[in-house]
C-alpha cells in the first residue's frame, strides 16, 4: 500500500519535473554529456554490508571529473545523486527527484540521511547540469547497508537515587473542592524551568486520571498531563465531582523523565459535590464568577470561511477550537463547551445564556461544522463557545466577528 503510494508519487513527480524542465511533454531521449574514461564516484568510508546508525552523514568522492552545481553546463563536470533502495533510472532521462533519488544540485559532497532500521541499498550516480547521467554513466557500486535498530536515543538525565516528589497537604483518599490548588514539593532534586538544561534538576508534571506515560520519552502534553514548565510548585485544577487520581512525575528540560524516574505515589482524591441547591448545574467551579472557567490560551476560530471571503449562498461553516474540547450541551466537563454560530447579530452579553433563535445557532450535539443558507449580500459570522448551560466561559472563548459576502465566488467579486 505504502510502496504503491510512494511509486505513484514518484511517477507524478518525475513527469512533473520532466515537463517543467523541458517546457514540453517529452519522452524523447536527452543528449547525454560525455564522460571521460576512468571517471568514477564512490562512497567515502562506507563499504558493502556496513552496519550504520539510523542517522548518518554519508560522504561522496568523485575522481576524474569535477563537481558543478546543477544548471551549470561544464565539460567533465556534474553533481551527485544518491539512490536509496531503488534501481538505476533509465539513462537519457533526468534523474527523478523524490525520496529515493536525492539530488545534491548545490554541489554537496556529503549528506546526512535518516534511514529506518533494516537493510537498504545505496548507490551514487553522477549527472550533468540537466540531471541526465553521463555517457558512459558515472556511478558507484550499489552497496547494501544494515541500519541498526534502536535509533540513537537521547540519554535520559540522571537523578539522584534518593530524589523525591510528593504532594503537600494532600493524602490518598482526601476530599477536595472542585476547584482547588494542588501543591507539591521535591527533595534532593532542583527545580529548573523546561528548556533549561541543568544537572539534577527538572520540572513537575501533574498526571490526572491517567496511567504513567512511557518513561523513555517526552511526557505528553494534554488535559491529563499538566506541564508545570515554568517551575511552578502548585497548580490550580478544576475537576468534576467524583473520584480522580493524581500523580506527580518529574522530568528534565526536554520533558523526559529522569533515570531513575522521580515520581510520587498515585493518589486518589474525591471531589465533593457542591452544596448548591440545584444539583443540575453542579459545577461549582463557576461559583466564584457564575461562569465556567476556560484556559487562558483557548481560542475558537473559523477554518472556513475567513474574513472577507466570498461564499456560496449555501455553505458549510467549519469551526476550529484550540486548547479546549467539544462536549454536547448539558455535559459538565472541565475545559469543554459547545459551539454557537452567530449570524448577523452583535456579540451577546457574556454573562448570560446565549439566546436560541435563527441568528444564534446552537450546535448542542457537539458539531464542529454547520451548513447554512444565506441571502446574497454581506453578512457577519461569529463563534462563541458556551458551557453546559449555554453560558460563555470566563474568559469568554469567542472568535472575531468576521464579514463574509454571499455571492458566487467563481464569478467576479461584488463591488465594494
Amino acid at each position, binding site marked *: 500500500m*505504502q510502496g504503491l*503510494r*510512494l511509486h505513484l*508519487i514518484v511517477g507524478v513527480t518525475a513527469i512533473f519535473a520532466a515537463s517543467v524542465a523541458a517546457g514540453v511533454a517529452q519522452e524523447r531521449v536527452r543528449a547525454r554529456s560525455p564522460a571521460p574514461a576512468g571517471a568514477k564516484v564512490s562512497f567515502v568510508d562506507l563499504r558493502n554490508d556496513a552496519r550504520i546508525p539510523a542517522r548518518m552523514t554519508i560522504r561522496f568522492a568523485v575522481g576524474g571529473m569535477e563537481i558543478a552545481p546543477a544548471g551549470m553546463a561544464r565539460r567533465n563536470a556534474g553533481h551527485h545523486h544518491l539512490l536509496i533502495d531503488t534501481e538505476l533510472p533509465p539513462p537519457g532521462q533526468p534523474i527523478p527527484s523524490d*525520496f529515493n533519488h536525492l539530488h545534491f544540485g548545490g554541489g554537496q559532497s556529503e549528506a546526512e540521511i*535518516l534511514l*529506518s532500521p533494516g537493510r537498504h541499498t545505496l548507490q551514487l550516480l553522477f549527472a550533468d547540469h540537466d540531471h541526465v547521467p553521463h555517457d558512459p554513466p558515472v556511478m558507484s557500486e550499489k552497496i547494501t547497508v544494515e541500519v541498526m535498530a534502536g535509533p540513537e536515543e537521547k540519554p535520559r538525565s540522571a537523578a539522584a537515587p534518593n530524589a523525591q516528589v510528593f504532594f503537600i497537604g494532600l493524602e490518598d483518599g482526601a476530599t477536595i473542592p472542585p476547584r482547588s490548588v494542588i501543591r507539591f514539593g521535591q527533595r534532593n532534586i532542583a527545580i529548573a524551568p523546561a528548556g533549561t538544561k541543568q544537572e539534577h534538576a527538572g520540572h513537575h508534571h501533574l498526571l490526572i*486520571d*491517567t*496511567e*504513567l506515560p*512511557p*518513561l*523513555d*520519552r*517526552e511526557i505528553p*502534553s*494534554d*488535559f*491529563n498531563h499538566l506541564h508545570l514548565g515554568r517551575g511552578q510548585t502548585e497548580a490550580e485544577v478544576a475537576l468534576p465531582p*467524583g*473520584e*480522580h*487520581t493524581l500523580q506527580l512525575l518529574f522530568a528534565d528540560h526536554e520533558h523526559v523523565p529522569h533515570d531513575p*524516574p522521580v515520581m510520587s505515589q*498515585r493518589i*486518589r482524591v474525591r471531589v465533593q459535590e457542591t452544596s448548591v441547591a440545584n444539583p443540575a448545574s453542579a459545577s461549582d467551579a463557576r461559583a466564584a464568577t457564575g461562569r465556567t472557567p476556560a484556559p487562558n490560551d483557548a481560542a475558537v476560530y473559523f*477554518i472556513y470561511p475567513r474574513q472577507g471571503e466570498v461564499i456560496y449562498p449555501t455553505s458549510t461553516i*467549519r*469551526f*476550529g*477550537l*484550540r486548547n*479546549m*474540547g*467539544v*462536549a*454536547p450541551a448539558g*455535559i459538565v*466537563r472541565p*475545559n*469543554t463547551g459547545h459551539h454557537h454560530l452567530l449570524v448577523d447579530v452583535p456579540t451577546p452579553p457574556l454573562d448570560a445564556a446565549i439566546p436560541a433563535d435563527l441568528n444564534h445557532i446552537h*450546535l448542542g*450535539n*457537539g*458539531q*464542529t*461544522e454547520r451548513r447554512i443558507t444565506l441571502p446574497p449580500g454581506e453578512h457577519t459570522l461569529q463563534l462563541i463557545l458556551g458551557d453546559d448551560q449555554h453560558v460563555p466561559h470566563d474568559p469568554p472563548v469567542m472568535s472575531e466577528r468576521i464579514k463574509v459576502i454571499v455571492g458566487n465566488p467563481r464569478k467576479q467579486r461584488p463591488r465594494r
Partner: protein
Amino acid sequence: MTRAAVTRPALPRLAAAVLSAALSAAAPPPLSAQSLPRQPAPRNATVYFHYPLDGLRVPERFTVRIGLKEMGVAPAGIDKPNTGHHHLLIDVDPGPPDQPIPADYNHIHLGNGQTEVVVTLPKGTHTLQLLLGDHTHAPHKPPVISQKITIYVR
C-alpha cells in the same frame, strides 16, 4: 511499541486493580475478546483532516486539525447518540472495529472532545488516520474513519 510495554512501570497488582475501578471512565475498560454493542453512526458521517492533507510536507511539530461531518463531538465516557471522540492513528492500521481502540503512542485519544492536537514526529514518512470512537472508545457501526494519509516530516 514493545519498548513502551517494557518501560511501563510495574504497578503493584492490587493497586492496579483498585485504580482500574476509579479509572473506568477515563481509560478503556479491560476488554475480553467478546465484541461490544456498537453505537450506530449516520451513513453519511465523515471524519476528515483539515490539516495536514495527503502528501504534505510538514515540520516536526505540527497541529492536526480534525473535521467531522454529520456528527458531534463528545468527551469519552459521554453516551449520546450521534457523537463520539476523535482518535488519531499514527503509523498504524486500525484494529478490528468491534474492539476498543488501544491507548498508546500510535493511537492518540482525544478524550476531552478536542478537535485538534499538536504532534511531534521524527523526520521521515508517516501515516495518519482518524477514527471516531464512542463513549467506550469502540468504533461506531459503520466505523467513522478517515482516509489514511501519508505525510513527510522534514
